[in-house]
């Protein structure tokens, strides 16, 4: 069974993984550091991928909440 590598390079994949892992979390209530901790705790997350740039946390928060 293959495991998808998750990193900040693909926010769509990241959002899908976060939704599956934390269905009851309201991302609007999370600070950037809290959001980052959830990302780093995802199965398949690779820290060797691109780092989160300015605005990536906010974009992730929006995509997660709004399905945008």
């Amino acid at each position, binding site marked *: 069974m293959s495991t998808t590598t998750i990193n900040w390079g693909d926010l769509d994949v990241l959002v899908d993984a976060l939704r599956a892992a934390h269905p009851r979390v*309201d991302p*609007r*209530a999370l600070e950037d550091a809290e959001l980052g901790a959830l990302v780093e705790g995802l199965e398949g997350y690779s820290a060797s991928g691109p780092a989160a*740039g*300015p*605005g990536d946390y*906010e*974009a992730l*928060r*929006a*995509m997660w*909440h*709004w399905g*945008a």
Partner: protein
Amino acid sequence: MTEPDTTGVLDSVTSPALNEGWIRAVLFDHAIDDWVDLGPDPIRRRHAGQIYADHVGAAYAAWKWLSDRAGADVDIPPADQAVPDALALEIGAGDWTELMAALLTVGRAQAVLFAELAAGGDEAARRAFDRVGRDCAGHAALAFLELRRGTFTDRDRAVAALRRMVPATAALLAGTGADSRWSGRLEPLLAALGWDLTKV
């Protein structure tokens, strides 16, 4: 009918967060009803409807909280009065770009103020404003995403709107103690968009 006197329950944070001119405009004068037509495609029409509903909900929560504390009737509107510039700019958003610019700046300020009210008040305040604060924070996040993508927003018009909205919002927050939290969140996001806060 006598208009409620809520002056005794307002302080430096509640006064801008629960501005009665804004409450009257949104809740009684239907001033943001046109927002529901601003979504440029089906999913954004859905977003616009949700944003509209959240704002009406925020105005109702604000007016109910004030009315309860003043022992007044929530169905009686506040006196007709001026709306602070920042909130007036948000209310007057005429298209998707302007609405996103307003939610990024003014809406974020409202998120900070309502969160302060929820955290610093009693249980009734927490119940009334915790969700409202999260709703506004969610609008601001969507606005950032929309402006970053730029698919349905116009960069030049967004910058033009921000030139008006950023200073107006700073003025709204002056004296609240929430201004640094607001600018600390907004400035890196504007920088990420390539829009230096000091230049807009």
